[in-house]
């Protein structure tokens, strides 16, 4: 392997046979798809039929890092889970922070491919290149934080861990994969896929060095980008001070903060769950993922009331929104408690919160018979929220089992799928498309189902205000730019939050010096575009078409009732044709031959 930044090795683990194998990184693929998300998708495309049942033995799970992971590049601690997602069958890449990614590289591997299914629960212990599949029967059923502790106890006190909780074990379609006990690869139901393989977790440590191609040029880029972030008002101001929850008041003031299952987009008492309040009432300290100068992570404690003494990581903005605003709840302690519970069960907070909100609307409208629910699912009730999360996590009641499948299956079960606030069956996050037109286009076209971190147009539509949030014109290009940039930077193993202060040129300078390839900002964007189109090709083979690139009817038809976006709806069709055009796709969202040839992936069609 001539490229810098990579360790050059992939670990393949066949859980059915117990065999492990080391394979070299394919240099051509690395040049075309970087690492992490892009490279992982290329492996999936090569080895897995897009039509397989996501929870079958034929599906594979890839735990991957990128070439910048574990270096001093700002916020380069990301780890990615790439698989066919359990929630909707689309290509799933769900990524997390913490310290697992760098540890995997120090153990000698860029990524792990899991295939098959273990006969009984197991975990993987990787110690400096030595790999051992160990029995995990005694850990099956344990919460994520307990699992993390046991894995470290049985392996090494400084091992970094990955774990699923009871939700993943019981194949909840909104189960996540947790790293270091409280950093989540939250979305698309990756936890269920891991659970379906009887894989409880991984412990990893090592002391193999990570080398970059051009050390002098790399360190110059490191100090330049770290300086830029230190001067950025969001990356070095709002985020470390208030965490991502700083967005509550900002987004609510725009009237783009969906409340009560998006029946409105403005919450009068939102400040009670905002980052400023969280800092004052619950913050203990900031936590930074590996090599991160931002350190937006919250270490919190509940200091009064019935949950007094509970402590943990988070909550993040999206979690506060889903568990709080969407359920009409302004009781911050209940929201934090629900967030801790989701982490312990291994549930995606966005989907979990939005599913409880959906259940509350079904219950209040009488679509769900009262007799179906052991709790009074009323909007605004913190107790109902906490109890509903427990039902969802334990799955020992019919309602719990239903909730654990996400809002789409829940709403469909009661005959009202339109009440699921989702796209491609995945719950959308904390920005109302009626208030920010571009983010709706991104939700609808996101390759993994509704998601904000595929193309965070909010940075332009709400934070830097470089785009008119209510305009439709130009949103196709805006969405494409954010989607392509994110696909590339994810694949390098850095965090999206660096883009508050850094552009494609900056990221390209880090990538190019670390790996030792020529790459400027334009090339970097092209890498991202190639990755995006490869993901799209996967989704086309699954059977997704233009009709799936849509949003809930409520967002398209029901005007916002109060706040700064009163009267607004989202006219998605006005943007879709434009988006497909700037992407070089036809009207049915199929990439043209010219585009695929331009990107060098025509042969993969």
């Amino acid at each position, binding site marked *: 392997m001539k490229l810098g930044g990579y360790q050059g090795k992939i670990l393949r683990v066949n859980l059915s046979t117990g065999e492990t194998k080391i394979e070299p990184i394919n240099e051509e693929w690395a040049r075309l798809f970087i690492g992490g998300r892009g490279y992982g998708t290329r492996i999936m495309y090569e080895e897995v039929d897009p039509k397989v049942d996501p929870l079958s033995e034929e599906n594979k799970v890839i735990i991957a890092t990128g070439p910048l992971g574990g270096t001093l590049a700002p916020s380069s601690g990301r780890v990615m889970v790439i698989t066919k997602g359990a929630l909707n069958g689309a290509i799933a890449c769900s990524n997390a922070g913490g310290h697992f990614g760098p540890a995997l590289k120090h153990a000698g591997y860029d990524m792990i491919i899991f295939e098959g299914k273990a006969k009984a629960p197991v975990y993987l212990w990787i110690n400096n290149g030595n790999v051992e599949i160990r029995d995990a029967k005694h850990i099956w059923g344990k919460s994520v934080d307990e699992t993390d502790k046991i894995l470290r106890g049985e392996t090494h006190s400084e091992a970094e861990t990955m774990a699923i909780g009871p939700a993943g074990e019981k194949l909840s379609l909104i189960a996540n994969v947790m790293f270091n006990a409280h950093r989540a690869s939250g979305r698309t139901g990756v936890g269920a896929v891991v659970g379906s393989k009887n894989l409880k977790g991984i412990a990893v440590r090592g002391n193999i060095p990570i080398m970059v191609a051009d050390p002098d040029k790399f360190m110059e880029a490191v100090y330049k980008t770290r300086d830029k972030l230190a001067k950025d008002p969001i990356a070095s101001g709002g985020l470390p001070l208030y965490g991502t929850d700083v967005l509550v008041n900002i987004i609510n003031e725009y009237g783009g903060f969906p409340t009560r299952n998006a029946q409105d987009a403005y919450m009068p008492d939102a400040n009670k769950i905002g980052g400023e309040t969280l800092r004052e009432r619950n913050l203990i300290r900031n936590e930074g993922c590996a090599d*991160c*100068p931002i350190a937006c992570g919250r270490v919190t404690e509940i200091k009064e009331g019935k949950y007094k003494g509970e402590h943990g990581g988070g909550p993040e903005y999206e979690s506060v929104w889903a568990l709080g605003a969407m359920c009409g709840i302004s009781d911050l302690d209940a929201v934090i408690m629900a967030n801790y519970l989701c982490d312990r069960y291994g549930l995606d907070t966005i989907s979990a919160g939005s599913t409880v909100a959906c259940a509350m609307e079904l219950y209040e409208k009488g679509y769900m018979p009262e007799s179906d629910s052991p709790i009074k699912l009323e909007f605004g009730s913190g107790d109902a929220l906490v109890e509903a999360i427990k039902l969802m996590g334990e799955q020992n009641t019919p309602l719990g089992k239903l909730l654990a499948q996400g809002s789409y299956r829940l709403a469909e079960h009661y005959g009202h799928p339109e009440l699921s606030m989702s796209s491609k069956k995945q719950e959308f996050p904390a920005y109302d498309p009626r208030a920010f037109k571009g983010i709706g286009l991104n939700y609808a076209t996101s390759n993994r189902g509704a998601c904000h971190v595929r193309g965070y147009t909010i940075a332009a539509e709400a934070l830097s205000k470089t785009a008119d949030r209510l305009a439709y014109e130009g949103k196709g290009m805006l969405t494409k730019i954010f989607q392509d940039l994110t696909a590339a930077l994810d694949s390098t193993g850095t965090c999206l939050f660096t883009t508050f202060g850094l552009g494609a040129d900056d990221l390209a300078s880090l990538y190019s010096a670390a790996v030792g390839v020529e790459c400027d900002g334009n090339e970097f964007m092209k890498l991202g575009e190639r990755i995006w189109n490869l993901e799209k090709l996967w989704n086309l083979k699954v059977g997704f078409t233009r009709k799936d690139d849509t949003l809930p009817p409520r967002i398209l038809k029901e005007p916002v009732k109060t706040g700064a976006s009163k009267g607004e709806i989202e006219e998605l069709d006005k943007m879709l044709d434009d988006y497909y055009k700037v992407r070089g796709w036809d009207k049915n969202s199929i990439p043209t031959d010219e585009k695929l040839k331009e990107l060098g992936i025509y042969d993969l069609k």
Partner: protein
Amino acid sequence: MLNPLKCTGCRACEDVCSFAHEGVFNPIDARIKVTTFLEELTFVPSVCLQCEEPYCAEVCPTGALVKDTETGLVKFDANKCIGCKQCVVACPWGSIKMTHSTREIIKCDNCGGDPACIKVCPSKAITYEEVEDVVLAKQHSTAAQYKEIAKSMAKGVNP
């Protein structure tokens, strides 16, 4: 000065230290160490404190470790080191160790007066300060608290 209250646990100090001294990213070869207590989410940085009466220098049979009275540093001379590891045993902080690759003794050399770890620490958990300034800052902080207490007590006495 090392401040666990400010440390975010990002461990950039370990990466920059190993890079500055070894040219690679590898925390095991860093002179500085951050210990993570995951249950409490607490992070504690530790590094050679350049002791006034360094045990490491006392046990060193070849004079490879010497307290430099001018700079205050405990200096290490690799040419004199025979690798007996008595300094590793003697250091109460675990701040003297061996590289995992070459098995050579390593310890913090303050990067010759311009420590790389301080440059990358985003939360100022590691700083380079005069002892007198640290003491003064602590005195001021305690005095400010005491001033408030005194004020409220005075109100109680003379309402």
